[in-house]
């Protein structure tokens, strides 16, 4: 019972803090909007897409990819922020409580996924208002499911790295060697059908590609792998990352 209320406590904290950092919420929307408005319009004016349904422009084509990018950046850094918690000993207060490390891990994941989902809902509203994205009830719900599943994996990844790191100096390295490869190799910005073999092989082993593909399927009807494959891969990604994350949390020292 105390584990359950502990889970609620951790979620409560993350969510309370999130609702009070409105400036952070707003700034987290600026980057995806710049990609959509500037990059989407700029590149969209010079390229023509093959293999997408008629009427889908480049801006709309990258929209699912930009949702995934928002998840990547937001969730990974959410996980990494436990380094800050280590520094101010906030984490100690949690670790000295009777809660198990597994509960603490899931509390973090749940809190982060809630924050991220709110951001994605805002982006979905903006998408349907300004970028001509049409959501049906089904596609809206499926999009949120896919996004939430991706968040769980990415937050777990962030928490794993964060629990192994001692200082935030390595944040830049993480961006270069984790976030950007996952993002660029996911097909977020280009169709993956006619890629050279070497690049395609990177795309298919990147689990984020399946989230992008899944979103593209439900939002635009323009997927490649098939929705079931997409979901299966993301769920498998989740399970692996949760296992690694809880393991890393259990052996975390402060």
């Amino acid at each position, binding site marked *: *019972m*105390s584990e359950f209320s*502990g889970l609620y406590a951790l979620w409560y904290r993350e969510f309370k803090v999130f609702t009070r950092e409105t400036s952070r919420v707003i700034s987290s929307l600026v980057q995806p909007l710049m990609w959509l408005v500037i990059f989407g319009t700029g590149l969209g004016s010079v390229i023509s897409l093959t293999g997408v349904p008629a009427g889908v422009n480049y801006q709309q084509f990258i929209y699912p990819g930009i949702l995934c990018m928002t998840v990547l950046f937001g969730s990974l850094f959410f996980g990494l922020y436990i380094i800050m918690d280590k520094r*101010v*000993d*906030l984490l100690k207060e*949690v670790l000295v409580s*009777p809660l198990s490390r597994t509960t603490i891990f899931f509390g973090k994941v749940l809190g982060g996924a809630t924050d991220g989902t709110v951001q994605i809902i805002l982006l979905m509203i903006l998408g349907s208002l300004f970028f001509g994205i049409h959501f049906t009830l089904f596609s809206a719900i499926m999009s949120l499911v896919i996004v939430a599943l991706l968040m769980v994996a990415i937050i777990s990844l962030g928490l794993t790295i964060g629990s192994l790191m001692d200082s935030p100096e390595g944040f830049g390295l993480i961006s270069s060697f984790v976030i950007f490869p996952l993002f660029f190799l996911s097909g977020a910005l280009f169709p993956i059908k006619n890629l050279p073999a070497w690049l395609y092989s990177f795309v298919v082993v990147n689990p984020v590609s399946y989230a992008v593909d899944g979103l593209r399927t439900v939002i635009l009807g323009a997927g490649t792998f098939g929705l079931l494959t997409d979901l299966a891969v993301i769920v498998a990604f989740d399970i692996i990352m949760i296992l690694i994350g809880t393991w890393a949390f259990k052996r975390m020292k402060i």
Partner: protein
Amino acid sequence: MIETKNLTKRFDRLTAVNKLNLKIEEGEIFGLLGPNGAGKTTTLSMLATLVIPTEGHATVAGFDVRKQPSAVRHSIGFVFQDPSSDDMLTGRENLYLHALMYGVDMKNINQKMDDVLKLVDLTERQHERMKKYSGGMRRRLELARGLLHEPKILFLDEPTLGLDPQTREHLWTYIKKLSQEKKVTVIITTHYMDEADSLCDRVAIIDRGKIAALDTPQKLKDRLGGDVVRLKVNNKPRLDGIKKLKYVKNVKQEGGFVTMTVDDSGRHLQEILKRIGIVESVETRKPTLNDVFLHFTGSEMREEGGEGGYFERMMHSNQGGR
């Protein structure tokens, strides 16, 4: 309440705590006294199950720290050296979080929060975000938080570090009140001698991971025997003569001063002055815990240095936001 047997922690080559044997009784305020890096915090961390001992055993409230860490953590409250509450939440919200994590009975949670807030005089500021709290208020809230789940044992790691003298004395009052009213066993680490003296029932002086002395503050002071005599000297004092005297101990010369402990100084001062030569001024006083500390560790309390980059961490806590 707490018992350790040969409790040892080694980090790589450094032995932070070396075969520590302690027995702390219920309801006592027990002080761990020592210079920075003596192993105080490591000892507390082992007792709180945050650090796993390399060797030896410890039981806390009857539970083994290795085998029953969760039960141990249920029975203790911990107030850390560094800030450990969430800036973005209000004082009351931080308490609420704590109650949830410790599975405190939710029926009378509001009553309990009111009680502990009143105990530390924060009722009026409870709905303010903690970033607006001063260092002392923060400490008081964290103290209140440590009590919320009614632990049998409360660990206080340098509870008054960096606080102004007035706030420190306030905090001492709260701690005394606690141990009297709620019968909480309090383990406190400090490197302030006056704090240990006025607060603790018993004190263990720890140096380099070992207990150098353990007793009540009064008995420790009595052990030095007699009074501390401090002489201001101008010329070269003749120390050999006084070192031979039976009733003189711990003769030390530093700068223009000679310090020693003397039994029944009122009677013997004449003889000492005769032997030492010309003296500019004389000061006699009862020994303080600081003298005891000097005697047992052979070194002055090192104030400088900061434990593990405390100020650096403070900086980060201000910037970090979460």
